[in-house]
């Protein structure tokens, strides 16, 4: 699908150089990979958080670009919204209004009430179509799978309108295979985080993961295939840090420096940062009806987040399972400011952690935050208390 290589900067570098290139790309609010793609004549579909079936867009030879806000001033977008709103909605629209990101189609999801409004607001301000992809909120219903297959077929039709070409089932299966590879490689990144967290810092793993949404997956796969052996062989020693799970990064992203700051005192052994990229937990079948396969995977073999209702996946139970699987000693329970689902879920998470007697640290963040001194001090104190308690116990 690649008409052009959009991220050549990492090639020919050592591990630290590659990781720096990934971080630079992630922090570049001009989205150079998307720009290069379009300069080469490529078309782009922007999709808002959390999960999007990127394979459908990829199969059309179009770049699925993850829209997840950015640490920018919403100079144009601010006037389109009221006061009491999370930042990611505003900065995402700002990307379009400021011309940083050029799209042919924008798709949002009913993940929250603000995100659903985004399609209408976006659509009134740009010249290309803007849609809501109605991912089912009744995930346990036997009727959800068939409905979702049909909704994906509708999306396929919308994407076909952009290119004027039919998206064949074979093309879809090929794209599913590319994304299966990508998900498997990301699972390896997370395995390193979990098993040998001293070999990859939290912010490094985050950068490696997050840039998946900025480039064709083939390129990202190539990058990860090069990086993973280097990470495994990295000469690094364990430090006296506490193993934590970071929860609350499913939609608006914490500032990169906040993740770096957490990494100064903690090993983040698992998290829900950009969980949409890792939503599907195992390979999607590449035989049979590809849209039905994607629908099945979304509903039946997927992670969890506060924005999907599925009585089979009680979120606090899923969090506890994540903590245990990662052998974490504590949880950072975060939420983006003004994020209704995230803030509501915090209460349930905290109660469950209390019951399970797992220590936690509650915080709020905003993608535009620039100072972290206070948070660092609070977190250090939290960690010291835990380490001291462990010493006393032993």
């Amino acid at each position, binding site marked *: 699908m690649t008409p052009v290589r959009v991220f050549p900067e990492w090639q020919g570098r050592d591990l630290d150089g590659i990781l720096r290139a990934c971080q630079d790309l992630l922090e570049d609010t001009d989205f150079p990979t998307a720009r290069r793609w379009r300069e080469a004549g490529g078309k782009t579909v922007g999709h808002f958080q959390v999960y999007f079936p990127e394979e459908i867009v990829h199969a059309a030879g179009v770049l699925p670009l993850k829209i997840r806000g950015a640490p920018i001033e919403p100079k144009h977008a601010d*006037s*389109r*919204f*009221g*006061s*009491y*709103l999370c930042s990611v*909605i505003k900065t995402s629209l700002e990307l379009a209004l400021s011309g940083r990101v050029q799209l042919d189609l924008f798709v949002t999801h*009913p*993940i*929250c*009430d*603000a995100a*659903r*409004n*985004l*399609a*209408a*607001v976006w*659509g*009134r*301000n740009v010249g290309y*179509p*803007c*849609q*809501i*992809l*109605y991912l*089912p*909120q*009744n995930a346990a*219903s*036997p*009727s*959800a799978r*068939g*409905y979702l297959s*049909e*909704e994906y077929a*509708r999306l396929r039709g919308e994407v076909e309108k952009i290119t004027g070409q039919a998206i064949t089932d074979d093309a879809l299966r090929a794209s599913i295979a590319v994304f299966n590879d990508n998900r498997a490689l990301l699972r390896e990144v997370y395995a390193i985080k979990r098993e040998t967290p001293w070999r990859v810092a939290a912010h490094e793993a985050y950068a490696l993961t997050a840039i998946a949404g900025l480039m064709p997956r083939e390129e990202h796969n190539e990058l990860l295939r090069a990086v993973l052996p280097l990470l495994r062989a990295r000469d690094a020693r364990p430090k006296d840090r506490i193993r934590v799970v970071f929860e609350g990064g499913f939609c608006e992203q914490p500032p990169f420096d906040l993740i770096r700051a957490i990494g100064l005192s903690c090993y983040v052994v698992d998290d829900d940062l950009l969980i949409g990229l890792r939503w599907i937990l195992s390979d999607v079948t590449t035989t049979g009806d590809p849209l039905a396969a994607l629908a099945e995977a979304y509903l039946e073999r997927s992670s969890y987040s*506060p*924005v999907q*209702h599925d*009585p089979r996946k009680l979120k606090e139970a899923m969090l506890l399972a994540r903590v245990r699987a990662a052998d974490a000693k504590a949880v950072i329970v975060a*939420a983006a*400011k*003004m994020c*209704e*689902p995230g*803030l*509501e*879920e*915090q*209460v*349930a998470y*905290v*109660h469950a952690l209390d019951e399970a007697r797992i220590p936690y640290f509650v915080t709020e963040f905003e993608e535009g935050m620039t100072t972290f001194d206070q948070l660092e001090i609070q977190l250090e104190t939290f960690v010291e208390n835990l380490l001291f308690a462990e010493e006393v116990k032993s």
Partner: protein
Amino acid sequence: MSVIDTKNGLVGRGNRDGARLFREWFDGLTADADAGRGGAYVFVMGSLGELLRSFDLPLVFPEINSLQTAVRHQAHDYLNEAEDLGYSPDICGYVKADVATQRRGGVLPMGRIPKPQIAVLTNACNTYIKWAEIWERMYGMPSYVIDIPGTRQAGGQTWRGDEGFERDRRYVAAQLKELITLLEQVTKQPFDIDRLRENMGHANRMSRSWKRVLELNQSRPALFNALSDGTIYLGVCNGFRGSEQGAKYFEDLVEEMTYKRDHGIGTLVDERFRLVFVGVPCYPIFRRFSEMFAEHGGTFVHSTYLWFASGGANLGFEYDLSDPIESLAEGLLVGARDAMDSMFFQTQALATMVDEFAVDGVVFHPIKSCRTVSTGLADQRRALMAMRDIPSLFIESDMMDKRVVSEAQLKNRIDAFFEGLESRRLQHATPR
């Protein structure tokens, strides 16, 4: 007012009967709670009162309960209690007031509500889903989310016979069948399709009349205030949907409004400016909020609230009683979708409202508590201004939390808005 008006009590009957029905409803809920009977917790956008009544489930509307705490100036106690439990000041005030209500054993200023036996909700508001998850954790009772695909893109509505519409309708119908099975399990009562049919007949009469009531307010002077009177009508529209009482109430309301129109009886004696309200009312100062407009001769002739908070009943959709389940699915899809459109894709509908109701100004009132309604309002305003030469006012406050309601600031803005309306009128009256 004529002797006939006072003798028959026709004028003002809707408000009196509404208040009476509301008291009776809460008396019934209190009796249910005292007897240990569980209720069906439902929401205004897609309550399915027609169906739930056929299982003899008392209907509890947590949104209405919560707003009543604000109208009665008691919301802050409830909000504080929930915030002490860890709920953020930045989430929906309705949710927090309800959390505190549950903690208090269902005790509210108007009475006591039963515990939930089941919660039935739609995705018309995402917070409904998070809210129901709180009850699931508190009580371990089942909840059922009816997932209703909304309009995908501005101007992209589909209708009966369209492939996309039929696909969505089938999905909703399949879920309704699942819900009926669940209701049979929860209530241990077999589904009675004839009772459903009867209730749907009542809902038809209500919807038909509600649509007519809204149309009648095109009269000059306006017959009712869409904000203050309209909220009473909405209470009945939701609480009594699918009942004979609800159907009769709205038929009576049509009679009252027709009478007022025929006799030129307006809600204001001196109507000077006809306004539209977009958003959710400011319940902490509910009466005062309306007064600040009425003092200038401003009356709200319509509001988007009367659309979405009636669950789309404003459309006047009537069920086909010969095919209840499929028709219920169609009505639910059309109604809930319209409620969502009234919040997300409302620009053209607002422009039409401005034209049909001869509106002088539009008041946008986004609130802290509700992102569903409020997120797009600033942009809606901009888009409407581009479509119509109509003055507008943009004021922010809340539906529950008096900490973010500044009456003095609101009054300043409202006064300035009316000054603008006055000078505009003068300019238009001045020969050039």
